[in-house]
């Protein structure tokens, strides 16, 4: 085959597939944004008119705001716990050589490759049996635990990349200058790992904020945004949902951009 024809073909394939992929990824997102501005009650095209009516309705809807609040609380606590556990695990998994290292890596990362719905069910069984023995019900706390189990491995992987690129000589240098263990962490290790820790925290937050499966199984009667919408779709779609989606997308994209900036600097 002629080299020039071949190069042209490769270009068409690569540019074409990238463009197609980006369009594909953004089809449902832009569809939701478009529908959020429609005026009528029914989610069908053509629109009856454009308005911001449903955004107004959203901010007057107590269940929707309550779901948003629950999502945020769960995500904040889960982020803090998952990032801390994940960061420590990442240092252990990359930096140290010890007996049972492979087992540690496998155990700490296993939930990554476990379907979330099944993880939710396995944990639901666990908490139900424990709950019967010790007298508690599933609710916001069990949901948070479920989120941490699932998200800590993600945080570990993200921070691990940062640990991998970090020269341990810097820590030794600080130690040689007389810094104690805690000082080394505070002034050397954590600042150097910070971009990784920070982006891990952002991804943890978003994973937890938008998590459906674990919340669905573990939150008892507490509703978060994803379960609120899921339970609504079962009854029939409401014009509120696209507006909720548009509101949820804004902090999402901003946080992803922020995480990316931080990581580039690191």
């Amino acid at each position, binding site marked *: 085959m002629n080299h020039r024809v071949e190069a042209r073909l490769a270009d068409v394939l690569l540019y074409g597939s990238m463009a197609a992929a980006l369009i594909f990824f953004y089809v449902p997102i832009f569809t939701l944004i478009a529908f959020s501005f429609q005026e009528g009650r029914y989610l069908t*095209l053509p629109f009856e008119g454009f308005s911001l009516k449903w955004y107004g309705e959203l901010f007057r809807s107590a269940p929707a705001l309550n779901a948003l609040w629950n999502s945020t609380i769960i995500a904040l606590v889960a982020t803090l716990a998952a990032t801390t556990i994940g960061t420590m695990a990442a240092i252990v998994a990359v930096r140290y050589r*010890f007996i049972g290292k492979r087992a540690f890596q496998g155990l700490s990362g296993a939930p990554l490759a*476990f379907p979330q719905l*099944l993880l939710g069910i396995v944990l639901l*069984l666990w908490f139900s049996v424990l709950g019967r023995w010790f007298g508690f019900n599933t609710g916001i706390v069990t949901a948070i635990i479920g989120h941490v189990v699932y998200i800590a491995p993600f945080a570990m992987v993200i921070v691990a990349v940062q640990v991998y690129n970090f020269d341990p000589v810097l820590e030794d240098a600080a130690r040689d200058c007389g810094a104690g263990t805690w000082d080394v962490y505070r002034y050397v290790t954590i600042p150097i790992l910070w971009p990784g820790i920070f982006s891990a925290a952002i991804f943890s937050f978003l994973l937890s904020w938008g998590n459906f*499966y674990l919340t669905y199984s573990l939150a008892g009667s507490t509703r978060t945004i994803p379960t609120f919408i899921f339970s609504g779709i079962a009854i029939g779609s409401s014009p509120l949902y696209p507006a909720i989606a548009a509101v949820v997308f804004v902090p999402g994209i901003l946080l992803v951009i922020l995480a990316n900036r931080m990581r580039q600097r690191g």
Partner: protein
Amino acid sequence: MDGEITRSWRDPELFVKALPSVLLQTTCFLAPLLMTFILTFQRTRDFQLRWTWDLATWTEIFSKPHYWTILGHTLFMAIACVIVCIVLALPIAYGLATRFKAYENEIKTLITFAFITDATLKTFGWVLFLDKKGGANFLLSYIGFPPETVAFLFTDWATLLGMVYNLLPFAIFTIYLSIDNIDRSLILAAYDAGASKFRAHWEVTLPLCKPGIWAGSVLIFLLGVGVFLEPKVLGGGKSPMSAELIRQTFETRVNWPLGAALTLVLMIVAVFIVLLFTRVAGMKRAAT
């Protein structure tokens, strides 16, 4: 970078940092899995769990082909999803790693955002797009297609579309990482030796990004057998997959042992298939 430091478990440096993760995953991952296994030998009566220790649940599972048909359908959908994802991800990941260096970060940000936002919302967005009076048909009729050209919502095709949509980023990122790690000079050497672009791609790049393809396939397969939102929302719940069956045994039938057993069967069969493929791929490598 080789900066591994040998530590013993008695060293607090290691112990303190490893403990939270080990504790979390043993008490909230391994122990629940064990409990799930134990529960399969119990029974539920009057919505209450009875500790009976018998094999009633397992005999039920092995005597009813219904469960296995659904399992087969689930595995088929997951494998179809893996194939579609890998085929689509290869040119995307390759382009991202080699051609679009200038916009690499922007593209990665866009894909990450699409990947990480609320799956329920995105799936619902697809419903709005594919609906009879949704976005796709509106746009198509605008350029002259007959009304209701797109009519595959609430079929297996829509389920597959949703699965590919939600899982494709895993393939893109794993393959991207492996291509990014390939030593450029190997490809240049292939060119020097007179290989055409496609030949170099076929004989150098593709074999070298096998680990990425493999990792992506395993992840997508394992996550794909557990999908629930896509068949329920996009597939209309018409041809149930394992995850939905499992949910139902808990919700409507309140049969915990059966649900626990079905969960284990699904995971064991899925892991077994992964091991089988690993074995076959390993044998092929040994033969050549």
